[in-house]
């Protein structure tokens, strides 16, 4: 069990950080200094609280769903509530947790520091982005209380235009949420272009920056299309715009095209930042440079690009011609090629490294296993002939949860542990961290592995009841969900305890060479005492510590 090793930079001083100025947490005090802050680190922490709350809410919806599916007939909620639950679970998890989670929390916090910048390019836009997120959350929560939604998170017409639930406000809430995403992504792109420290060329940047950059591009160009299609649904629901109404010659399938033109790239909005986190974690904990820096960096951009041309694979049974479906299937498989390049590069990075098994590294291993599993089944469902069999069954549910939860949530947890000392200057309890990580993994596998079997056996998704022969797999899945929930709560508890009672971390507890660790932990309000000068890449583990420190000076 590796305790964190302090093998670089100076020993902690009186404040535990070795900084002349107080760190950003103590720089100002009072509620005002938080709510009106323009410091990217404080904004990141406010987002952190927000996304954790919504992870809890979305998780609660999921547990209600799973508990209902414990028995073949009605267990404890009625069918309408069940429809509400899976819709609200999807909406909460996708827009209020998964999309903002890694970029707005960890991206906001470490991206400027990684670049050697004092802040993002537009600090006020960053703060506004937080409040727009809060506004969207209020609208969505209000809509949940005032009727909810029972359309599924995809809002397919014609049902979404006639559903008696609060579809209009859901649409507006998601539209507002998109504005928040766009603000953050503009900030990231401009910051990466204009605020790199002296000497920090593109190919010296930490890989997390590349991933955030790719994500931002997708957000910028895909989100408006989603916003527009949901706005059309919202107006249709209230005023009868009828743009997709066959009575007036409209085509409901067109809505699916618009929706997936965003929502498929949205998958990459959710997974690319996770790739970035994993790249950082694998290098830091194997103390090795990536097997191929460029392969990881460019494959992110490759995914960002190809991701725009794969949306049709959601519509194989919606009347797409066989030729189109074949083309979309083949294009979808390109994503698998780029992803495989990444996976192989990460694995090759371990070779010859000096590996320490701290909690983030363990999450990396879970990620590797779950993501490969999810990715391979992705290739399977991108194949038209197979998808016809699996479409709208639990097989698909299991597939995308392997990517979204097994990939993104696992990476989120890896990041939460990896950057915890950076954000708060303290170390979490490593043993509890490892144990909760194992609980999360086992819980996850028990939740979703049975769902592959259920889907393959023919159990459709979104059904309230099921034949008795599916019950034992559903019981396994529900048990797993509860274990997963417990693991997440314990992991959160471990971090919360460490917030107050954790050991002082020192500036660089993992011995990482990445640039966010060259300043104090937690950093001072302006991140660096002096403007950094960078004369090496972010992964120079072959250099001795002194030389590495000398070549990336900042304090």
């Amino acid at each position, binding site marked *: 069990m590796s305790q964190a090793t302090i093998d670089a930079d100076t020993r902690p001083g009186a404040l535990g950080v070795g900084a002349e100025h107080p760190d950003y947490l103590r720089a100002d005090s009072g509620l005002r200094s938080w709510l009106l802050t323009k410091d990217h680190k404080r904004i990141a922490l406010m987002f952190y609280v927000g996304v954790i709350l919504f992870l809890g809410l979305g998780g609660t919806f999921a547990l209600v769903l799973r508990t209902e599916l414990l028995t073949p007939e009605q267990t404890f909620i009625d069918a309408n509530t069940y429809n509400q639950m899976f819709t609200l679970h999807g909406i909460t998890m996708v827009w209020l947790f998964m999309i903002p989670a890694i970029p707005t929390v960890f991206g906001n916090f470490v991206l400027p520091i990684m670049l050697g910048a004092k802040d993002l390019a537009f600090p006020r836009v960053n703060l506004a982005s937080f409040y727009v997120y809060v506004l969207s959350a209020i609208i969505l929560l209000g809509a949940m209380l005032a009727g909810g939604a029972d359309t599924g998170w995809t809002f397919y017409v014609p049902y979404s235009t006639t559903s008696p639930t609060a579809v209009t406000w859901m649409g507006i809430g998601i539209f507002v949420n998109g504005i928040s995403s*766009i603000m953050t992504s503009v900030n990231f792109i*401009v910051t990466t272009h*204009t605020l790199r420290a002296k000497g920090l060329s593109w190919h010296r940047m930490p890989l997390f920056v590349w991933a955030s950059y790719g994500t931002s591009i997708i957000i*910028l*160009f895909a989100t408006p299309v989603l*916003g527009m299609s949901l706005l059309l649904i919202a107006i249709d629901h209230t005023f009868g715009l009828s743009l997709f109404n066959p009575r007036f010659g409209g085509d409901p399938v067109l809505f699916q095209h618009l929706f997936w033109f965003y929502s498929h790239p949205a998958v990459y909005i959710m997974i690319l930042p996770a790739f970035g986190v994993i790249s950082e974690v694998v290098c830091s904990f194997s103390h090795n440079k990536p097997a191929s820096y460029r392969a990881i960096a460019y494959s992110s951009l490759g995914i960002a690009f190809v991701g725009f041309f794969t949306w049709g694979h959601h519509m194989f049974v919606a009347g797409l011609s066989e030729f189109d479906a074949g083309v979309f299937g083949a294009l979808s498989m390109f994503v698998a090629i780029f992803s495989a390049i990444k996976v192989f590069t990460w694995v090759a990075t371990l070779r010859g490294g000096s590996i320490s098994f701290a909690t983030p590294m363990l999450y990396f291993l879970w990620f590797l296993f779950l993501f490969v599993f999810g990715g391979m089944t992705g290739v399977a469902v991108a194949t038209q002939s197979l998808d016809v069999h699996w479409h709208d069954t639990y097989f698909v549910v299991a597939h995308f949860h392997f990517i979204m939860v097994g990939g993104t949530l696992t990476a989120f947890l890896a990041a939460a542990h990896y950057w915890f000392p950076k954000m708060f200057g303290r170390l979490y309890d490593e043993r509890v961290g490892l144990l909760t990580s194992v609980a999360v993994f086992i819980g996850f596998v028990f939740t979703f592995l049975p769902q592959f079997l259920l889907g393959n056996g023919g159990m459709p998704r979104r059904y309230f009841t099921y034949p008795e022969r599916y019950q034992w797999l559903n019981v396994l899945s529900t048990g797993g969900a509860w274990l997963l929930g417990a693991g997440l709560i314990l992991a959160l508890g471990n971090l919360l305890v460490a917030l107050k009672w954790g050991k002082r971390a020192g500036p660089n507890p993992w011995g990482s060479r990445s640039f966010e660790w060259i300043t104090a932990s937690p950093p001072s309000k302006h991140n660096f005492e002096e403007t950094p000068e960078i004369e090496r890449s972010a992964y120079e583990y072959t250099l001795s510590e002194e030389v590495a420190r000398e070549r990336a000076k900042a304090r």
Partner: protein
Amino acid sequence: MSAQRLAEQFETLEKQDHAARLGMWMFLGSETLLFGALFAVYAYYRGMYPSEFVQALHHNSVALGTTNTVVLITSSFTVALGVHFVREGKTRLTAALFALSTLFGGVFLVVKGIEYAHHIHENALPGGMYSFVEQPPAGVVLGITLYWFMTALHGLHVIAGMIMLAAVAVLCLKGRYGTHRFVAVENVGLYWHLVDVVWIFLWPLFYLTD
């Protein structure tokens, strides 16, 4: 003055201005896709119902649409002139030109309003409210609906642009902008050009279909 306006995260004013410009271009790219989605819907439905679209848009007044096109292009020209003069420090001239452009925006909206009033009178309304002809053939309603939705969305952008133009005009008079500082003026100008460009696509699609 200029040392004051340099935000702490930037090293030089040039870089800060470059960042502001780049940010605006990114935002405009995003805006393009907002309209892009609707243009895609238009293309799809017009491909499905070519003659119905012509029929639906037949009663749009080419004269009024063209007038509006001329008004908007002229306003873009005055905005461009304003941006040119602020760089030379002639801020009062810029303020006047931006005020004039705002006025052109107002003229555009009035003309659009006259058209809308006419459509309402004819009952050429979007979606379920449409009752222009008995038993409308499929496709006509889609054309009208898209016309209303896209021009109304564009109209909202015109209003937003007018507010920005007016604000910049006032700030120019107050001496906020000049040779030392004009990137915000340029950015508002860019936004107005986008509004103009969108209309240049809307004009043939909704008025020149005959």
